[in-house]
């Protein structure tokens, strides 16, 4: 008996040692499930399996607030307008649109024959019902903030709807592309209330895909919608299989269990690019990483101090050491893909200039301050550490405070200047409406409530306020761009609101057989045109 046990144990140990020594085997795991479509020419699978890093939080367009949810909402719903491949605004559910002479009333002519997934025809009543829900602050919806200037929504006729704003709004067409304003079915809004978008049966959109099943944290399956008014989706099923751990996600892609993964760690990109059968797609996005200034701080409130800190940072070192290939140095307070961006050039590290500015500000020997960061943002702690080291070189001693995300969110807004205590804090920025209005107004305009609200760092500059306000009301695109350019010059360096570090690239690692995936500048990944070869 003892001998048998010993033999068993040795075999067990050998399996481990052999396994550790063996070479990578051919990948035999099938990427999809289900059969293939019978077509001439190249054969395609009928299922694409995609692994985001988290499950969808909500499929209610008015509530969704994260990239994973947003990209699935985009597959299920449509907006009145949308951005085409070149970033131009084109009609989606709207056939055409016009604005009144006073630039306050926008009239949208809807496409006819658009069906919801349950077969109901989409009409102007649906648009009105959707927007009125968003406009009511008592509903406590995330979307409420972006429709604050909507005064009323009226049904002109069955296929015509008009929106009146309280004042002219220059970014209106960009706003109408925002997936938060996707058209929903008010019957479902009434039926499900706050539970809308939290289960498969509570979703009724007009999008190219409808929901087939959804088991939270396991799998969400979309099926192409046969009565879709636009071009039919070529792949029948899209499966979202959330894998929270980055290394496990990469392994699942390499084994072929999934066809594409979101959020590839920078360290893995070169290896995946070199792996046969896999590709890594990188695209410019609206996303930027910066450290904002808490301008309520007695030292940081000094413009020269802020300029000194801006000059103290070597952005290229940060990118090379932490985000090689997945970021480029920022050139403005907006990324180039955001409408209204003005190229102000990369700010190069200049320690002499930084020291001189500190001396002029009355701090020739530097000062002590604090950097607040969170691990929620990729390499948030490392970024703060590099910044602190670079500040130290000009004599500024920065203590680092790392906060867990929920705690960070609570300490960042809704506070008075006396309560807010974050002289330098990490921030991710990128307007989902891809327009300078979304990227600047509210974030850098003086708060009127006495609390920081969205202007977390209590930044206040009269000229910036006037420029952003004027640009919001201006409907001539060229004039708007000029106004935004001046505002960006001030925010970026003249009276800096933050240290803009880099513009992020969205990455998608995928099987080379996967084609035509749509990666938007707001980092959403959608599959309405995607196919996958057998």
């Amino acid at each position, binding site marked *: 008996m003892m001998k048998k046990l010993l033999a068993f144990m040795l075999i067990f140990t050998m399996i481990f040692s052999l396994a550790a020594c063996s070479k990578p*085997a051919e990948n035999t*795991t099938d990427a999809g499930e289900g059969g293939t479509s019978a077509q001439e020419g190249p054969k395609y699978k009928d299922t694409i399996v995609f692994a985001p890093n988290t499950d969808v939080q909500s499929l209610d367009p008015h509530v969704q607030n994260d990239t994973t949810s947003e990209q699935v909402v985009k597959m299920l719903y449509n907006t009145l307008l949308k951005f085409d491949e070149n970033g131009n605004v084109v009609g989606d559910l709207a056939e055409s649109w016009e604005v009144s002479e006073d630039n306050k009333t926008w009239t949208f002519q809807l496409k006819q024959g658009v069906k919801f997934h349950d077969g109901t025809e989409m009409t102007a009543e649906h648009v009105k019902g959707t927007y009125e829900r968003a406009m009511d602050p008592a509903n406590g919806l995330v979307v409420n903030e972006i429709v604050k200037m909507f005064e009323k929504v009226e049904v002109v006729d069955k296929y015509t709807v008009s929106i009146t704003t309280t004042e002219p709004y220059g970014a209106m067409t960009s706003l109408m592309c925002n997936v938060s304003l996707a058209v929903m079915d008010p019957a479902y809004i009434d039926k499900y209330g706050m539970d809308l978008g939290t289960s498969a049966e509570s979703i009724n959109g007009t999008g190219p895909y409808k929901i087939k099943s959804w088991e939270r944290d396991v799998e969400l399956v979309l099926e192409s919608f046969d009565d879709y008014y636009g071009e039919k989706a070529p792949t029948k099923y899209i499966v979202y299989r959330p894998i929270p*751990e980055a*290394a496990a996600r990469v*392994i699942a892609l390499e084994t072929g269990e999934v066809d594409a993964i979101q959020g590839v760690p920078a360290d893995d990109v070169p290896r995946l690019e070199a792996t046969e059968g896999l590709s890594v797609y990188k695209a410019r996005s609206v996303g930027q990483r910066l450290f904002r200034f808490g301008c309520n701080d007695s030292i940081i409130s000094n413009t020269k101090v802020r300029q000194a800190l801006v000059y103290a940072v070597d952005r290229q070192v940060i990118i090379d050491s932490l985000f090689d290939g997945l970021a480029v140095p920022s050139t403005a307070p907006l990324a180039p893909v955001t409408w209204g961006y003005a190229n102000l050039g990369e700010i190069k590290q200049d320690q002499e200039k930084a020291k001189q500015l500190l001396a002029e500000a009355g701090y020739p020997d530097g000062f002590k301050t604090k950097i607040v960061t969170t691990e929620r943002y990729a390499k948030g702690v490392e970024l703060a550490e590099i910044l602190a080291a670079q500040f130290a070189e000009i004599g500024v001693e920065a203590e680092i405070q790392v906060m867990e*995300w*929920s705690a960070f*969110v609570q300490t960042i807004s809704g506070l008075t200047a006396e309560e807010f205590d974050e002289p330098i804090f990490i921030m991710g920025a990128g307007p989902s409406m891809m327009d300078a209005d979304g990227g600047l107004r509210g974030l850098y305009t003086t708060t009127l409530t006495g609390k920081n609200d969205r202007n977390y760092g209590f930044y206040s500059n009269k000229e910036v306020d006037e420029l952003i306000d004027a640009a919001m009301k201006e409907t001539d695109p060229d004039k708007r761009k000029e106004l935004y350019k001046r505002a960006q010059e001030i925010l970026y360096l003249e009276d800096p609101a933050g240290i803009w570090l880099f513009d992020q690239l969205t990455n998608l690692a995928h099987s080379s057989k996967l084609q035509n995936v749509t990666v938007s500048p707001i980092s959403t990944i959608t599959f309405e045109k995607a196919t996958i070869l057998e």
Partner: protein
Amino acid sequence: MLGYTIRRILQIIPVLFVISLVVFLMLHMIPGDPVKNMLGINATEEAIEAMRAKLGLDQPLHKQYISFMKGVLKGDLGTSIHTRKPVVQEILDKYPYTLKLAVGGTIVATVFGIIFGIIAAVYHNKFMDNFIMVLSLLSVSTPSFFLSLILMLIFSLYLGWLPSVGVKSWAHYVLPVITLGAQSVGIMARTTRSAMLEVLNQDYIRTSRSRGVPERIIIYSHAFKNALIPIVTVIGLRFGGLLAGSALVETVFAIPGIGRLMVDGVLKRDYPVVQGTILVISATFVIMNLLTDLLYAVVDPRVKYD
């Protein structure tokens, strides 16, 4: 025995009450707000207040706790702030996954732990004993996160024998079960070894040997049975621990178990989910301890409860 069991079950009630109170207070004491978390960093104060009122989070703390406890008495653990599903339903959805992992992990740990422990005891102070003790030290000290990824690399990527992540088939459970089991194998082996050594040095074993009783019978019939009490204790504790879910292993293998539910709840400040899961996990742990105690009487007739 029956009286003892009833008494022990009744003792669970105050324990759970205290746990619920502590968890409730701690959750509300730590910084973070579920509504800000849900509505995002850009949400207006107005929207935050409206949502807080809708969720009843604007009520004074004691009212919130009383309302939670009233629900608990009716078997209602509240509704998740994020998924809008009843917490009971959330737990029922996730528990089967954790149960499969816990049963599998315990079987792996028990079988291999006992076998290795016996071998080590039998070959006391010889090479095999030392070898097993080094292995068991490795098993206890290897982080589950690391072991998970190593197993995935070997068995999923290089050999292609098993799927890496997910819960679609039984094969998906093999690697997480080995990971969870491996952690306990070392403890199990060490406990078995020391319990066996203690028994093997006793007079009646020496007497049996001198009477020519075969070694196999001495080890399995005499020694092992008498070494069972500490082994059962460790099995009970480990099984109870595994039933509480292993957030790390569940996260790496993308298994939606109870551990992940709880950790996600904490990160999102989903109060009802955290309160509900901790209550259920605590109850499970306490009940497992009770069952272990009752099992003593089965494995050792000398143990009597009254």
